[in-house]
């Protein structure tokens, strides 16, 4: 459970990125931050992560105010942010390594999550030997391995090809069903947002405010391909597009 009260961010030099954002992110659900490019979605996510501090306002995670990064939150990066000099095993176990978890224990945990994201057999491979999609799986496994309650994902699928992306989205739905975590997801793709989200938060252009919160009422069970042809899915995508269109140009 993550709550935000009156978050505003003005950058040095006077650029106002966020203006009085009030939101809550319920547990066990995926909430997407969607908006025109440059609207401050990533800034908002990094404020939750504790990587950027807001000019005013407060973020509460499980009732405790955020003052910096914390073990109850894990981040998945747009450009994967893997250490090129370290093996998949070490990359995935890096969060645990920083916490001082012993080698045998963290490698056992890492191994489990590496297998969980479908990379069994690549434990000793290096990032430059993997495709973009596989690298992001490593990034995801690293975030899962620290067993954080809140998973923050910053356009995690934007740097992978379309087929991989679709597979990722399906895997993500499965993950949300399996793990009781709070997922906060940033994307610029309307289709992706509607496909994976329980709630979509629409942000307006800078200085961003919350312009709408949409809860796509789409049945998540069964064939993932069905969702893409579901009429509610298509209608929601269309209505969001109508809402965002005014910001384009």
């Amino acid at each position, binding site marked *: 459970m993550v709550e935000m009260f009156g978050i505003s961010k003005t950058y040095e030099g006077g650029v106002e990125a966020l203006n009085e954002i009030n939101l809550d992110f319920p547990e066990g659900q995926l909430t997407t931050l969607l908006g025109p490019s440059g609207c401050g979605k990533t800034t908002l996510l*990094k404020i939750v*992560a*504790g*990587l950027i501090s807001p000019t005013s306002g407060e973020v509460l995670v499980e009732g405790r105010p955020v003052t910096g*990064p*914390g*073990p109850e*939150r*894990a*981040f998945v*990066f*747009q*450009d994967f*942010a893997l*250490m*090129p*000099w370290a093996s998949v095993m070490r990359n995935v176990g*890096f*969060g645990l*390594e*920083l*916490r001082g978890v012993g080698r045998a224990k963290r490698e056992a945990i890492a191994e489990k999550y590496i297998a969980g994201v479908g990379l069994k057999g690549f434990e000793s491979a290096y*990032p*430059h030997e993997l495709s973009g999609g596989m690298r992001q799986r490593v990034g995801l496994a*690293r975030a899962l391995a*620290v067993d954080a309650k809140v998973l923050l994902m910053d356009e995690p699928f934007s740097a992978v090809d379309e087929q991989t992306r679709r597979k990722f989205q399906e895997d993500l739905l499965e993950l949300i069903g399996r793990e009781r975590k709070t997922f906060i997801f940033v994307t610029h793709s309307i289709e992706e947002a509607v496909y994976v989200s329980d709630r979509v938060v629409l942000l307006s252009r800078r200085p961003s405010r919350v312009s709408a919160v949409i809860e796509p009422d789409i049945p998540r069970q069964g064939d993932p391909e069905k969702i893409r042809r579901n009429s509610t899915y298509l209608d929601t995508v269309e209505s969001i597009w109508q809402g965002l269109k005014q910001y384009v140009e």
Partner: protein
Amino acid sequence: MFASLLVWALIWEIVGRSGASLVIPPLSSVFARIVEIAPTPTFINALWITGRSFLLGNAIAILLGVPLGVMMGRSVVADRLLLPWVNMFLSAPLSALVPVIMVLFGLGDTTIILTVVLFAIWIIVLDARAGVRGISPSLVEMAKSFGANQWQAFSNIYVWAALPEILSGIRLGMIRAVKGVVIGQLLVSIVGFGSLFELYSSRFLMEHFWALLFMLFVFAFLLNEILAWLERKVEYYASSRQ
């Protein structure tokens, strides 16, 4: 390249044999001297003293220079405070400072070691700084978001991500350190190779003199090649860093 070396060696030999200059003995006799000098206790002792000062000086320069460079790459304040000095020392005629060190620390190993540090450290600092500035910001954010403290970020991320630049800084630093150790010993002139150079030139033993110089050249060249090879081995970091 090898052929051109041969040509120049031949010219040297001819000039040497013609007796045109007392300073240039025939190359063949210089090589004969190398074989003669290298196993002598005097030479081995000088090599040991020089090598020790060289390695110690380099170790100090690396241990101080890399953290300093990383700090400058990370902190704007430290960078503004220190960069002008680093740049100044990088291009300053450092040999002129050696007598000052000599006055402060005497005519011993300490002076030589400090001279080596003085010659080597600045390029190490600058290259480490450049390397750290080139680190992808998301890698730094990654370390922070997974809870890395300052030391963990330094030892797990900065040093490794900047390793290609740090290594090339160390290589360039070592080349400068060769100059530093030789200049230091020449000025002090009673230790290591410095005392040998002093001895040979004062007695006008040109063959000995050149033999010693040759060995130093080869040493510096080999050192550069070894470090360049090491650098190439970690080059893929750089390409995978974006």
